[in-house]
């Protein structure tokens, strides 16, 4: 237990480094959380395609125009989008929390400390602003801007969080933001870009994280 740095300065430096990192970074984020988030997003997106009765990359149909008078399962498109989004958020949050909690327990880390609180605040504030922004878009009928906006705000929330957790999250943030910005210029591919950002990227990142940090 007691190690005298005088005898082994290299070990002392290693210890310092590890403590600095463990006390400022949230390292319990599980790769499985990413995979769950990705899969749930893709399922949520699939429901949108069913609702709109169309296929990804379908030519000649613009989804947000079709959405204007889409009606299914007793729902118009506005309440449908809100419900679908809430469903995705709910299931993804449950999945992510479960796997992160499991990893934290295995690492012997306490999930409910000041660091987690700081991380959540930094994540939820930009995300909450984005959520309200998107509700306003929906309310005003800007369905075309909805998908890219969620990508941009989600990316900004991730960027804001990245300094408290794994470095790689920052690049995920930049990718999400870029997809969102791209989506603003190619509005008709909004859903497909959304699928890449929330679905594919999460799964790819989840697998990379799982192999790198969870094993």
């Amino acid at each position: 237990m007691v190690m005298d740095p005088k005898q082994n300065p290299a070990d002392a430096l290693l210890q310092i480094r590890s403590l600095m990192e463990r006390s400022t970074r949230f390292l319990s984020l599980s790769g499985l959380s990413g995979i769950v988030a990705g899969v749930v997003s893709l399922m949520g997106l699939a429901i949108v395609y069913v609702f709109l009765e169309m296929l990804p990359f379908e030519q000649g149909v613009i989804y947000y125009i079709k959405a204007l008078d889409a009606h299914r399962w007793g729902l118009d498109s506005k309440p449908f989008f809100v419900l679908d989004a809430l469903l995705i958020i709910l299931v993804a949050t449950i999945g992510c929390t479960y796997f992160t909690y499991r990893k934290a327990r295995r690492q012997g880390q306490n999930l409910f400390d000041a660091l987690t609180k700081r991380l959540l605040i930094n994540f939820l504030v930009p995300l909450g602003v984005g959520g309200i922004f998107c509700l306003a878009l929906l309310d005003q009928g800007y369905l075309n801007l909805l998908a890219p906006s969620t990508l941009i705000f989600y990316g900004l929330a991730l960027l804001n969080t990245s300094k408290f957790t794994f470095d790689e999250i920052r690049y995920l943030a930049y990718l999400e933001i870029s997809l969102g910005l791209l989506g603003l210029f190619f509005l008709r591919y909004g859903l497909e870009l959304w699928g890449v950002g929330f679905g594919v990227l999460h799964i790819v990142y989840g697998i990379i994280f799982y192999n790198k940090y969870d094993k």
Partner: protein
Amino acid sequence: MKKILSTLKETKLDNRIRLGIMSILVVNSWVEFKQLKTILDLTDGNLASHIKALEKELYIEVKKEFVGRKPQTTYRVTTKGRTAFEDHLSALEALIRRKDE
């Protein structure tokens, strides 16, 4: 060489636990006693005695307050503590460089 060793001693951080506490405090603003305990995996008594030593050197300052009904003790590094920590790190690095030569 002699100077390096005496610096390591003078900073009073030539102890794994005290150095550990300082490592955490220099990168966080206010840290709770319980958090330090969890990260360093120490008993209350052991941690408290080392904290006392750091307080005596004026390396850290203490804040005691009530959060709801629970008393909470948090710590923050002082300028003097930060300087001592940096001196100690430099001395450790110097020692390693010397070994490499």
